[in-house]
């Protein structure tokens, strides 16, 4: 074994998106020494792509908004499969977390009275998303990055060293979590630049690695979305929860092919955009499900009035939760009413003046102009579903974000629970802030209470090193890029937006073949910045994640949120009570059932019994009368 660079920290945060940065800030504010490790350059994480905004019931635009309404919306959006405790904490703490960003220097768009402006989004009863045009994620990540700089400047003033308390390791990929006696002990990885290995010894590790989009062909995600955190956690002995729930965002670009999947923000609909099919019909009126019947407009006239008079009209069905809209688009295309490139039309050009479009949706205007030669102020866009977000994720304690492995914490998209079976737009960025902070706090408190720090031994590192170098000595001639493309096609076609038993069985068989092919994949070139090698290592993570998704999807015999079964089209009260847990057994993913905790009575009371009947079994229904606070 070669000499491996070693560092020792109190807390290691893996991931520099919103969740990782917020966790690092918190751990540092608690006095801990923190390392932030990320695969890309600092400030480039996936969070940078978020467009629409951050959901927080500040009530700046509509004073009726409060945490209870946000909580209800989140539970409804997730079809009651959410961890209600997380949904409660999220709704209560999001406003404070957003206001805090202003103290770090964030500049959100303003209301006429100078407060943070809030915009409408699917599934949110009131305008709730704090935003900056359609580049809200950039604002979030830059603000947190700049807060970290300001903390480093503080540390510099005190110690003469910027990196005394927070050190950033950019372009380092973690390939293994280290554990000692069933506790987290650190992480092992390589510098992308050189291919050299590095070990982080730390009693607490926070996973904030984001999502899994790159296991699918059509995705809005970046190359980083290879499910590393999910796989690392499972291999280290933690569990994942409800991995079958994957959000297909209804509006991704469909043309040209090279940009297929790139996101078209929901704000286009929030700001007035409408969906039509090739016959010119505004088809969403035909797809309002029973559970939402009384909340959505039934005629275009009423829908259009809502934009200016939301108190006396119901919202347009274009703003139904994402799963509903994605399925509707899928059905229209299947019924032969799609556009030439297999999508539907999304139009703002006939709804808003060109100047307003450019002002409210500047990056969409650019994106279509530069990538598709479409001027959205003059023509409709063509859009279709794209794999966008994974609701499932690493199972955590709702208050501290600790996983089942002591000392390992998870926050952000990599963690599961908050969003249930479907996430509302804007609820991710708020999730990152609320639970990123809680994870940082949880990690700091854990370190504080720990009597002895675990010691990493050389044998562990030798093993991790051998595993990471294996692709160089494989003898087969499989090309990792080809395996990746085949995996993406398999998941897209067989475990995609509409699922059925026979196809998923087929997918699982293919995943076994891919495992063999990965073992035969060989890598050319050296260790310095070699993307072929990086992909070969990422593939192992994607395969484990894909297996977890496919097995959980095959198991859940109902349709709910981001999991639609052709062969079980209905939502089932009984399945709602079940969380599907996945763990790693040394070979692959295995699943088991875990009963859902019944909701606390004071939270149940926030809903009408009539509404609860749509989701809960008869025994679970409370005896209270319809609540008055709506």
């Amino acid at each position, binding site marked *: 074994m070669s000499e491996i660079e070693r560092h020792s920290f109190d807390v290691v945060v893996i991931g520099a998106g919103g969740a990782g940065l917020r966790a690092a800030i918190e751990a540092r504010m608690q006095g801990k020494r923190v390392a932030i490790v990320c695969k890309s350059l600092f400030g480039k994480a996936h969070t940078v792509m978020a467009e629409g905004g951050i959901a927080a019931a500040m009530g700046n635009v509509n004073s009726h908004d409060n945490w209870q309404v946000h909580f209800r919306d989140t539970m409804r959006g997730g079809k009651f499969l959410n961890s209600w405790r997380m949904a409660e904490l999220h709704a209560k703490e999001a406003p404070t977390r957003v206001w805090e960003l202003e103290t770090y*220097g964030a500049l959100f768009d303003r209301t006429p009275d100078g407060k943070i402006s809030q915009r409408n989004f699917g599934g949110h009863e009131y305008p709730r998303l704090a935003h900056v045009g359609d580049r809200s994620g950039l604002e979030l990540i830059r603000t947190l990055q700049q807060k970290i700089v300001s903390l480093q400047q503080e540390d510099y003033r005190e110690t003469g060293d910027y990196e005394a308390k927070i050190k950033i390791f950019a372009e380092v990929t973690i390939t293994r979590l280290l554990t000692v006696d069933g506790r987290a002990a650190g992480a092992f990885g390589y510098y992308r630049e050189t291919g050299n290995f590095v070990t982080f010894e730390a009693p607490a590790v926070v996973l904030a690695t984001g999502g899994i989009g790159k296991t699918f062909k059509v995705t809005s995600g970046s190359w980083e979305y290879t499910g590393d955190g999910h796989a690392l956690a499972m291999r280290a002995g933690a569990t994942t929860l409800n991995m079958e729930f994957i959000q297909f965002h209804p509006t991704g670009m469909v043309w040209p092919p090279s940009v297929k999947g790139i996101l078209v923000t929901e704000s286009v609909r929030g700001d007035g955009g409408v969906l039509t099919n090739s016959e010119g019909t505004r088809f969403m009126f035909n797809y309002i499900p029973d559970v939402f019947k009384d909340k959505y407009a039934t005629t275009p006239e009423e829908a259009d009035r809502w934009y200016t008079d939301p108190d006396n009209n119901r919202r347009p069905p274009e703003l139904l939760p994402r799963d509903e809209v994605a399925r509707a688009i899928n059905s229209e295309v299947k019924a032969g009413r799609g556009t030439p490139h297999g999508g539907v039309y999304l139009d703002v050009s006939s709804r808003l003046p060109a100047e307003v479009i450019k002002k409210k949706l500047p990056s969409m205007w650019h994106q279509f102009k530069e990538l598709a030669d479409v001027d959205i102020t003059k023509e409709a866009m063509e859009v279709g579903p794209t794999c966008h977000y994974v609701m499932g994720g690493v199972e955590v304690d709702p208050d501290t974000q600790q996983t089942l492995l002591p000392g390992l914490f998870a926050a952000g998209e990599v963690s599961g629970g908050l969003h249930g079976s479907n996430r509302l737009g804007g609820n991710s960025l708020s999730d990152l802030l609320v639970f990123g902070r809680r994870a940082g706090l949880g990690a700091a408190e854990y370190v504080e209470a720990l009597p002895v720090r675990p010691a990493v031994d050389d044998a562990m590192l030798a093993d991790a090193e051998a595993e990471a170098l294996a692709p160089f000595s494989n003898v087969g001639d499989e090309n990792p890029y080809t395996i990746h493309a085949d995996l993406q096609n398999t998941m897209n076609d067989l475990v995609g937006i509409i699922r059925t038993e026979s196809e998923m069985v087929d997918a699982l068989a293919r995943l076994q073949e891919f495992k063999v092919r990965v073992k035969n994949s060989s890598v050319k070139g050296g260790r310095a910045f070699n993307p072929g090698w990086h992909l070969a290592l990422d593939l192992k993570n994607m395969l484990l994640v894909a297996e977890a998704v496919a097995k959980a999807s095959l198991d859940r015999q109902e349709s709910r949120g981001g999991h639609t079964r052709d062969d079980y089209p209905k939502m089932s009260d009984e399945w709602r009570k079940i969380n599907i847990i996945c763990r790693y057994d040394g070979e692959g993913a295995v699943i088991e059932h875990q009963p859902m905790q019944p909701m606390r009575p004071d939270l149940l009371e926030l809903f009408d019994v009539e509404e609860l009947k749509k989701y809960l079994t008869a025994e679970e229904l409370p005896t209270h009368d319809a609540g008055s606070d709506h």
Partner: protein
Amino acid sequence: MGYTAKFKVWRGDDTGGGIEDFSVDVNEGEVVLDIIHRLQATQAPDLAVRWNCKAGKCGSCSAEVNGKPRLMCMTRMSTFTEDETITVTPMRTFPVIRDLVTDVSYNYEKARMVPAFAPPADLAPGDYRMAQVDVERSQEFRKCIECFMCNNVCHAVRDHEENKTTFSGPRFLMRIAELDMHPLDTVDRREVAVEDHGVGYCNITKCCTEVCPEHIKITDNAIIPLKERIADKKYDPIFSIASLFKRNKEGRQSAPDTPKATK
């Protein structure tokens, strides 16, 4: 529709390298980054390139295409003729790591030297009030995706390696201007702009503005106003940080309900 394009890609590392020739398929609607990815998948699996979003949002994929700084993911192949040879080289101002990947750590070091945002000490979170017109100036600069192409193209460092210690480039002069125009910031960074970031090196050629993929008017809206305010300070005989801060910050406050503390 599809055709075979001639590509020249710089390959090598800090010890040296050179241009390699490739013939590669191009399909309708593709961008330069798609072609680089096709090279990786079919001919050069270890070809090093940075990218993330492939939608012009993260600023990772900066390189020089036919000598011009470009985001590879936003450079459509249809902007070239089919018989044109397309040359892709790494950004010149930053040291090469491998192939198209450069060492941009200079930028992060400079970022760390800009004194951070400092709100009034007694202003509680949630009480911030700012008018849209007042935040818009800084918002323009916050569109920056840190592709570092402006810093790459600025002749003050591109042709003068030695200036890197004393000059931070347009990206961070703009960051200073951004903080300076923040309606609630309380720090005066004019000295720092001169002493630590070398605003004097800029002679307003506007090359940075020309390459900015976010179309930020770096020179006109950030650097020139910054220079003006510094000149202001230098020629003010009764200069004092406190009085100037008051004048400059107050002149911009127009949000209703602005808390007293900031006045």
